[in-house]
């Protein structure tokens, strides 16, 4: 489980690896609030290496979207693998996200 933060011009990319459960949610939330504090308000969440997500992870994503929008920023999500589909279907939370196939497309969409 890890979160890597890289800057691609104006866009901050968060690459999540491993299980997006309550442990990663804890890190994800503090990571997002750190970025908001530093006025990094355009983010792409790269989920392509997330092999599992539960409702804690989904909740953290929703909270992240809300927090960033409140500060007039934007979060986009890229690289959803089939492993994460089950919970998207059950919670129907995918409707709150801006979803792109790849990180590159998500980054490009900002310009």
């Amino acid at each position, binding site marked *: 489980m890890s979160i890597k933060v890289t800057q691609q011009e104006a866009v901050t990319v968060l690459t999540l690896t491993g299980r997006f459960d309550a442990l990663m949610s804890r890190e994800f939330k503090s990571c997002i609030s750190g970025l908001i504090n530093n006025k990094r308000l355009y983010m792409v969440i790269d989920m392509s290496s997330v092999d*599992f997500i539960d*409702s804690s992870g989904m*909740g953290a994503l929703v909270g992240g979207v809300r927090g960033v929008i409140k500060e007039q920023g934007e979060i986009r999500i890229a690289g959803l693998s089939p492993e994460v589909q*089950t919970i998207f279907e059950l*919670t129907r939370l995918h409707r709150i996200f801006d979803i792109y196939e790849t990180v590159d497309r998500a980054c490009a969409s900002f310009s």
Partner: protein
Amino acid sequence: MHYLLEIPAALESLRIAAPFTTAVLQELPEIRDRDRIIRELTLVASEAVTNALCHGSVTGLTIRLEYDLAPDAIIISVTDYGSGFDLETVVPPDLVLFQEGGYGVYIMKSIMDVVSYEKTDDGNYLVLRKSWERQ
């Protein structure tokens, strides 16, 4: 086959419970839709264990995660030693509100055939059962 794990009641214990769950679910027989069922059971187990660790957790105590694997069914049980709750009064999430939480019990009920919860002298005992067609 019966597999039991007992771990400290702290969120960090997910690092032990998750690979345990993965390993046990690999023992599922060759049933139809096996991959999907494994994915769903992995999700349910994570929700149940996280609830036990977060809500049912008193530092210094433990939680237990058990799997009973039969050729046509699995029972997942989670025991915690917290103050417990009333499963029947948990309201399902309102799916248009985009809540950040409150999905755990709903997910368990959506995926499993039986979800039951009992407060006993020896802890709070959540039992989750799912069966499939025997092949």
